[in-house]
């Protein structure tokens, strides 16, 4: 079946603009995660959703970052007033449950470049 998809694949934006990144999880997966991968770094957790429940936002780096999940499926990560340090690859993952036994399936990511 279809895997996790993300759009756009690449996004170039000017400093100060807002951007929206989209994630379509695997159908039926209740858990959805957003990670940020800066150049030469590992993945940094940003936020996670379990179904329609309130998200765990503990990893969001600032109040310029927010995310929502529509109907327990598609998720949008929004970055307001982008800064150059926001340049990174943003990865989304989904799993059929949130317990650690469930594998996370990753999308191909969105490469964000802030000029």
């Amino acid at each position, binding site marked *: 079946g279809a895997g996790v998809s993300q759009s756009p694949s690449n996004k170039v934006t000017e400093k100060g603009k807002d951007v929206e990144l989209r994630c379509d999880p695997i159908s039926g997966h209740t*858990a959805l*995660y957003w*990670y940020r991968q800066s150049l*030469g*770094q*590992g*993945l*940094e*957790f940003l936020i*996670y959703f*379990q179904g329609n429940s309130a998200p*765990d936002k503990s*990893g969001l780096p600032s109040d310029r970052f927010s995310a929502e999940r529509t109907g327990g499926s598609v998720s949008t990560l929004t970055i307001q007033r982008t800064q150059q340090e926001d340049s990174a*690859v943003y*990865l989304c*993952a989904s799993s059929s449950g*949130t*317990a*650690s*036994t469930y*594998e*996370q399936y*990753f*999308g*191909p*990511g969105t*490469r964000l470049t802030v000029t």
Partner: protein
Amino acid sequence: AQTVTQSQPEMSVQEAETVTLSCTYDTSESDYYLFWYKQPPSRQMILVIRQEAYKQQNATENRFSVNFQKAAKSFSLKISDSQLGDAAMYFCAYRTAYYNNDMRFGAGTRLTVKP
């Protein structure tokens, strides 16, 4: 907080030979999961192998195996009979078994396979 350290930014191996990638982690928990992910240039993270901390037996998946040393908090990945398609970034990751949360990733090791 849990941390994951990969001390080898880059590694190189000759095709058909064996290479070992190192990973250490820091945690006070007794139950957790460890993972190795592969990230090719396509950016999509692919699960290579996982290890449950309560299992003493080292996990194996075809040419991939781990050396899990719980007391030493070490989790190395051995790739046997290396193939050109193994060239990628490899990330070691830790996930707690106690609550629904993120995974902690190391900074990654870039593996080059020479023909």
